């Protein structure tokens, strides 16, 4: 009897053991329970945060009727896509994304019978995404620029003409220079400075005919390569101011500009580097053939362009043989690698939304504006080497892997930082998937275009072989001849206060 009970208990125990094991295996190997349990135990503290609130420029326009549109232009000259304001009760507000720092933004109002320009010195990037909208009152920010009037128009033209006459772009105007110059010009105007008063009067006179026949005295958009004389519309002068020609206008402007000192000082050890990647249809590769962005990458409507790269191994590193400034120390290289994505794919996003340095929203030209360490190449101590970058674009989702996202496997793009056009920035314009540009090893540049296979750095140029490792020109007219420096979006050079 006792033996039977013992056997029964043993059998029951064995079944219990089997059952418990089966239950445990089922519960934790794929039956849908382990996920929620582990997830609950390991949840991060990430939370969804709002985007940064807008910067809102508020101001007034002298004489403008309600409904007048106030357009905004980037310091580089391009209009902001989708950013404008409307005059109501002689005042207006224009909203700018708070996640982007803008300097030297130009405002323009046009209406039948008038036109007015002004410069907004600085729209700072918000400090926290939790901060409220930042109201930028133009009257306080730059008194000489508010309200938008003949005076603000004249001051804007003076500053604009001043940098143009010195061969610089309007983007090089630092906020401090704009504020100080506006204050100085205001003082000179009230002090009856003849040149300033004379130019302001000329502008006021021209503005009296604004809008007649659809003509306005001052262009909203300055053509590429335009000079001081192009700041006034010759057709308008011919139609409405026969006594004034462009030379007289330029002379008067420069005379007034001579009364202010527009000093532009660039940071010597850093430089703004702007990468532009064209994903638009019809983009041409280095052989002037239509590029195929999806030769390697796989398209998906939710994907976007990412950048990744690092400081190239041939960049001079400070040590016993090479001394600053023509080299980078290890800490600087490490920091720059982090900024460049350190060769992790799909982590550094490029933008085509008109923010963070991007020029025009939705034009298929993706922009990444970075601040990188810099020294001019050409030093004998380094064999002419400068700061060199290897990089690559990818078409992916955030944190995606390489497969199906990178432009091509294996190779990298090469670029040596050198400000060739003197705008205080390095701007590199690429076409996604273009294997005939600055791809390093298996470069597809055709023999007819000078291709030799590999792409060589400037100090390693092979005779008869083309090379492409620096900021580059683009070919906007489709003539298969890159002849125009690209617009660096809304990015500005890194300026610093000039030494006293």
């Amino acid at each position, binding site marked *: 009897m006792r033996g039977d009970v013992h056997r029964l208990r043993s059998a029951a125990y064995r079944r219990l053991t089997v*059952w418990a094991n089966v239950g445990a295996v089922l519960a934790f190997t794929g*039956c849908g329970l382990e996920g929620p349990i582990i997830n609950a135990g390991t949840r*991060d503290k*990430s939370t969804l945060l709002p985007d940064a609130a807008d910067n809102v420029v508020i101001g007034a326009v002298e004489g403008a009727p309600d409904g007048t549109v106030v357009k905004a232009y980037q310091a580089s000259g391009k209009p902001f896509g989708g950013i404008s304001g409307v005059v109501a009760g002689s005042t207006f507000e224009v909203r700018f994304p708070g996640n982007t720092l803008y300097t030297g933004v130009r405002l323009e109002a046009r209406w039948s019978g008038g036109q007015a320009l002004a410069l907004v010195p600085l729209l700072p990037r918000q400090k*926290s995404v939790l901060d409220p909208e930042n109201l930028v009152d133009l009257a306080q920010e730059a008194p000489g620029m508010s309200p938008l009037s003949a005076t603000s128009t004249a001051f804007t033209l003076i500053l604009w003409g001043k940098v143009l006459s010195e061969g610089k772009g309007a983007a090089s105007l630092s906020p401090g220079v704009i504020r100080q110059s506006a204050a100085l010009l205001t003082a000179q105007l009230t002090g009856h400075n003849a040149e300033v008063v004379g130019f302001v009067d000329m502008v006021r006179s021209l503005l009296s005919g604004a809008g007649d026949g659809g003509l306005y005295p001052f262009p909203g958009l300055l053509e590429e390569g335009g000079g001081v004389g192009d700041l006034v519309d010759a057709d308008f002068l011919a139609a409405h101011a026969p006594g004034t020609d462009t030379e007289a206008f330029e002379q008067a402007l420069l005379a007034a500009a001579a009364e202010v000192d527009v000093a532009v000082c660039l940071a010597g050890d850093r430089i703004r580097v702007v990468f532009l990647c064209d994903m638009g249809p019809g983009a041409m590769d280095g052989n002037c053939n239509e590029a195929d962005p999806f030769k390697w990458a796989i398209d998906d409507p*939710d994907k976007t362009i990412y950048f990744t790269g690092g400081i190239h191994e041939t960049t001079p590193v400070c040590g016993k043989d090479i001394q600053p400034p023509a080299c980078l120390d290890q800490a600087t290289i490490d920091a720059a690698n982090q900024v460049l994505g350190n060769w992790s794919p799909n982590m550094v996003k490029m933008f085509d939304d008109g923010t963070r340095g991007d020029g025009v929203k939705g034009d298929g030209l993706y922009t990444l504006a970075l601040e990188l360490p810099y020294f001019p190449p050409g030093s004998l101590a380094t064999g002419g080497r400068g700061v060199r970058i290897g990089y690559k674009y990818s078409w992916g*989702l955030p944190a995606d892997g390489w497969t199906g996202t990178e432009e091509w496997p294996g190779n990298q793009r090469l670029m040596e930082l050198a400000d060739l056009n003197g705008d205080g920035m390095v701007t590199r314009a690429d076409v996604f998937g273009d294997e005939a540009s600055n791809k390093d090893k298996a470069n597809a540049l055709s023999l007819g275009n000078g291709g030799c296979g590999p792409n060589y750095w400037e100090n390693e140029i092979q005779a008869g072989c083309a090379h492409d490792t620096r900021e580059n020109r683009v070919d906007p007219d489709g003539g298969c001849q890159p002849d125009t420096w690209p617009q660096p979006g809304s990015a500005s050079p890194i300026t610093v206060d000039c030494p006293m």
Partner: protein
Amino acid sequence: MRRLLALLLGLSVAGLPVVVSADIANFDLAGRLYTKWLYRNNDSQGVLTYGNPFWPDDIAGDNGVGTEFELKIFGRASRYVEGYARIQSRFGEMWQDWWESGERKYGGDVNTSGDSLGLNRASYIKLRGTWVRAVIPFASWWSNTVTIGSSDLGMFNPWTIGKVRYIDRDNGKGIFIGGIFGDGIVSYDLAMVALPKLYVGPWWSTGIGDPSLTRPFYSQDWAYGAKITVAPDWGTFTAISTLTNDVEIDMTDPDAVGSLYITCQDDLGNPIQGCEKDHAVDYFSRYMNSVTTLEMQLDPLDWFSANALYGVAVGRLDKQITANGVAQNQGVSPVAYKDTTDLAIRHRIELADPLDIGLSFQFEYFYIGEDWNSIFASRRESDVLLTDGLVEGGQLPTLNLANEFIDFDEDFVESCIGWHGNTAKALFAWEALDLDVEGTYIQYNTNAQNRDVDETYPDFLHSEGYTDTDLYDYANTTDRGRDPRSVYRRNQDRETVVAVVNIRYVFDVLEGLELAGKGKFIWDRDYRSHTSVEDDYTGQIWKARLKMGLGIIDGLKVEVGGQFDWWDEENRKGTLEQGYGDDRTWKAKAFWGLTYNYEGLKFRYYMEYLHKDQARERDVDQLWSVFRSKASLEVNW
């Protein structure tokens, strides 16, 4: 040596038959061939009257014939462990397709090669369902059955996790544990079911296709169910609780592909507090639906029984990761776009011939809250209410109905969400006569003024008019009336009366002559907006059907019959702004058919002529003259 040879010979003679017979005994095969013919005097081609209303399928149409083959394999590994697999050919290839290979070499172009129509038209054989089942007798008074694999989910009830429709019978897969204590007085079921990616959730999916999700994640979406039944001699108590949980990736987790914060920086590049890469990705619930029912069946007397069912349905929806299907999908959504909680009550009393004269009675009270919704409930082929309802296929407590993948001779189901009312039925059986009479009164918990059908409650776009299930079209290009899922309207103040009489008598002629008749009247009143009387709807729906079936010889039966419908609907369709119109519909249907069963062969043929005349006050009148037929041949072995 001689001994050794004798031993080997003995072993071979003795052992071989044992091994062979053991293999055969452990196998069981079942085969089935099914052929269906469809005909209609129109120009659509295919072998399924109503296909999928959303995904364009290539098998739906009214003219075609196709065959499918099914093979079920049962295996017994031991006394306690069994296995099952079903392989079946894909239905949809028409006989005229001849040599289709399954290729689709020419994109969407159909041509005469054998390579243009794709796999749906090639009758390819596919593994449809598998299960492994183990019986684990823990003790003499407690046994368990563990099933891993396919199930039709029939262990719960239509309110919670419903039995899936026949065509999906092996598609549901999971882990199922059933146990019995004692002599079956206490039993239980536990289930973990992999959620179908297609229909259990907002946007009829567990994430795929939701515009708010860039990377839908559906491989960890599960439903969980638990049921316990206590069944003493005098009744049965059943408690069921289920939970469907659709999880999605936490897009703020920097480890997730597609994360908003891959570098743990916000819009300004500032570090996000608490954000850290740990190479582990978190999930959030996109949509959860929990339904719990308690059902009590009491049988205290032979002639008296009572049933009570109480339920609570809870829906939780994360709007951050669920796009608004009401606002963005023209009001066509299987869920309200909000968190919901509501109750359902059903009381039923049956008096089974209490006077011993063949007269029985059934009474039912039902209450289903306006926010009740059971996303994983039965979608068709089931019925939770006693009433014949407005359509004949049954009433189900979900917006997730499936009036699809059916032919014209199959019934539609309707949603009873918000229904509140009573049904009384009297059933009389005397010799060869069966007679039953039903009266149902329905008012609606969904009655409301200015209900938000723009952002919150789905109205399924078409809410007006009596539903014509004979001539239904999903996109409503033919003014077919209300979508059976349309329980919410902007303005509704509605009540409905349903009266039904069924009569059946079998004469002793040949193999039996059956005469059956059905009469149905629906009085449907909806005052709609309280701001105007111009929109008040009154529908009077009359239906009469007479059918005669005659068994000629054993296995052969013919039937013939007809049905007449008269729908008189005041202010049937329109808008408050532009007014409504009175519409009248007259339908006549004549049908005939036969069934023939012969030595395992089942043949059925059905043909009908349908005439519909719809006179519309605000629109041009419409006429239908439809001949259509369906035949099927089935052989099982």
